[in-house]
């Protein structure tokens, strides 16, 4: 088991790793079929030093905040290392958000430094939201064309080489290392303050089940701002001297090619991508001539029988050679997370001898809470609690299903600037997840829906109704409210979660085609994964507080009396 007890901070642990594994390859960056970059740990350190100096020279001090908005690439990780090295707090933001949303979070985080890439900066610079980020002093932009005015930003690559080596700024375990936004672009931003201890402990726990070592290659497809990729696509592999492979283009064909080209050991995927992979493989199997199909099915059955109690990678690779060759022949596991994965998809891959590390976690808990340990593989659960995790179910119903609570050194210290929300979420050291589950007799956690009003898409995106409501403000109706349909009508399922728009019309008003069109038009202004899927017509006044805020819980209780299929009109 990895021992990180001697380290106080992410920066200190990474600094040691860069020296310990100096000659190993740490990063490969590929753009389509062209390899753009290949760095050893020593070269990574050399690239980081000028930036660290430049940041320190710009008066960036311990506990100052620096945001990164970039697609997955070498400079993301180099920048993150530099921020930790300088004692800063990293604010990793989703590059897929709109510029206005990014400015909103930049402002909320209080970041004084922004590191981004040119195409993103072009859009950010043109957005009116920029005026709000008054804390921002330094903006560094990668890959900007020469002779272009960067609207007050500086080129990342222009950090001058300097012979004076920068020195690590020490931090302690309990101090904040990152602010990770789990939601809140439209309403109340939820910036999870993660400590150095959170990451050091999570790294030890995860690598005890899924170890990294020099020569292991991790394919980084999920955005690195996402808690999973940050851990298994940066911190974990770096601490162990493994290699991270970045692709600048995430077209399915290039992702497929990368498995074989770089003989990938691990990859993390969201359920949507995993299902797509399954679909592609199934189509190829279906095209096999009857004779070959029969042999293939027999080999799958043999593999299934021989791996019942635990994976046997060598054996599976031998039995189902062609399938494994397509994945590079060295794949140890696919890590899936960010959203609920259907058991049949997990089973499909396991039967082919490709274990899927299915787990459950949330940003607030420091990535993963439970993970399938594969002894034996179970497709119907999200696994057992990781080492160091205390998990309990509170207020169970007659079936033993209740809210999942977690206590661990990996749980965040709180939400930035939200002491009340923090106090509601972490009670006596226990994090209330808002998810419903129960333990089976083997100690595996099974999930059965949510207690909270939100959805998680198959792409791993957390969507809170409050974050999408503003787009409907101009609707000419009396009042409206967005809900997760399963919050109103609990389903005991995490499959196909959807948002619905509940509308209350003015007296005498009807839901005309024009009004429907207006709703559709406004809906289409949202990013595709944030859109509502149906309308619910409600004919009474919404219950409201004295300050006229909608009482969402009370409204949900009233709506629950409606018949779900009849109440939801497709949009």
């Amino acid at each position, binding site marked *: 088991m990895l021992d990180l007890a001697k380290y106080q901070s992410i920066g200190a642990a990474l600094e040691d790793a860069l020296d310990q594994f100096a000659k190993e390859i740490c990063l490969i960056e590929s753009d*389509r079929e062209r390899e753009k970059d290949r760095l050893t740990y020593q070269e990574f350190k050399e690239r980081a030093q000028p930036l660290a100096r430049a940041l320190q020279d710009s008066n960036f001090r311990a506990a100052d905040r620096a945001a990164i908005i970039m*697609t997955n690439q070498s400079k993301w990780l180099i920048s993150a290392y530099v921020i930790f090295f300088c004692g800063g707090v990293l604010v990793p933001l989703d590059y*897929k958000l709109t510029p206005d949303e990014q400015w909103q979070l930049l402002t909320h985080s209080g970041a004084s430094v922004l590191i981004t890439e040119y195409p993103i900066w072009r859009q950010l610079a043109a957005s009116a939201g920029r005026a709000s980020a008054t804390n921002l002093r330094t903006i560094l932009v990668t890959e900007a064309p020469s002779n272009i005015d960067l609207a007050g930003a500086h080129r990342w690559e222009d950090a001058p080489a300097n012979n004076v080596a920068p020195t690590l700024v020490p931090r302690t375990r309990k101090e904040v290392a990152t602010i990770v936004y789990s939601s809140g672009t439209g309403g109340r931003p939820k910036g999870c303050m993660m400590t150095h201890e959170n990451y050091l402990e999570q790294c030890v726990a995860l690598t005890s089940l899924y170890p990294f070592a020099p020569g292991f290659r991790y394919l980084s497809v999920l955005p690195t701002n996402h808690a999973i990729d940050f851990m298994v696509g940066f911190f974990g592999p770096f601490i162990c001297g493994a290699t991270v492979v970045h692709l*600048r283009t995430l*077209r399915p064909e290039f992702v497929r090619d990368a498995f074989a080209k770089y003989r990938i050991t691990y990859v993390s995927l969201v359920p*949507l991508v995993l299902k797509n992979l399954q679909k592609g493989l199934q189509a190829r199997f279906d095209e096999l001539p009857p004779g070959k199909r029969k042999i293939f099915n027999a080999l799958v059955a043999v593999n299934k029988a021989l791996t019942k109690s635990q994976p046997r990678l060598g054996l599976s690779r031998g039995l189902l050679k062609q399938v494994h060759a397509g994945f590079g022949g060295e794949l140890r596991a696919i890590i899936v997370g960010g959203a609920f994965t259907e058991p049949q998809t997990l089973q499909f891959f396991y039967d082919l001898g490709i274990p899927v590390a299915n787990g459950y976690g949330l940003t607030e808990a420091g990535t993963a809470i439970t993970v399938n340990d594969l002894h034996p593989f179970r497709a119907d659960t999200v696994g057992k609690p990781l080492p160091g995790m205390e998990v309990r179910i509170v207020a169970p119903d007659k079936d033993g299903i209740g809210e999942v609570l977690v206590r661990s050194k990996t749980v965040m210290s709180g939400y930035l600037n939200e002491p009340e929300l923090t106090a509601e979420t972490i009670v006596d050291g226990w994090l209330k997840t808002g998810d419903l589950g129960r333990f089976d007799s083997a100690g595996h956690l099974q999930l059965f829906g949510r207690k909270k009003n939100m959805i998680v898409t*198959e*792409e791993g995106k957390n969507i809170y109704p409050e974050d999408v409501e503003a787009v409907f403000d101009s609707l000419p109706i009396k009042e409206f409210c967005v809900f997760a349909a399963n919050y109103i009508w609990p389903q005991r399922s995490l499959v196909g979660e959807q948002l619905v728009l509940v509308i209350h019309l003015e007296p005498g008003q009807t839901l005309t085609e024009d009004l429907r069109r207006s709703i559709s038009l406004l809906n*289409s202004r949202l990013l595709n994964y944030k859109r509502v899927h149906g309308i619910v017509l409600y004919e009474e006044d919404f219950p409201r507080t004295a300050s006229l805020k909608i009482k969402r819980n009370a409204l949900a209780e009233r709506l629950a009396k409606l018949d779900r299929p009849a109440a939801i009109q497709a949009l």
Partner: protein
Amino acid sequence: MTYPMRTIDQTTQEILDLASKHFNVPAGTLAPDDDFFKKLGIDSLQTLELLSRIENHFNIELPDYEVQGVSDFRTLASRIQSRL
């Protein structure tokens, strides 16, 4: 030998034809202002597949960031047109 430049309308029509073919939708049912996520019922991954077909057809490379946030054929066509 030089080829005449496509007009934006031609580019848009070729994209609509490619999308119809790729997703098995009868020709003529897609319009430039259609939201392709909604009209075709596709997800972000399927959009990337369509982009690969479009790249091959027009013989261009379209970086992922160029199509970030794009959800209608007309806007997509304008991004492609600027690279032809």
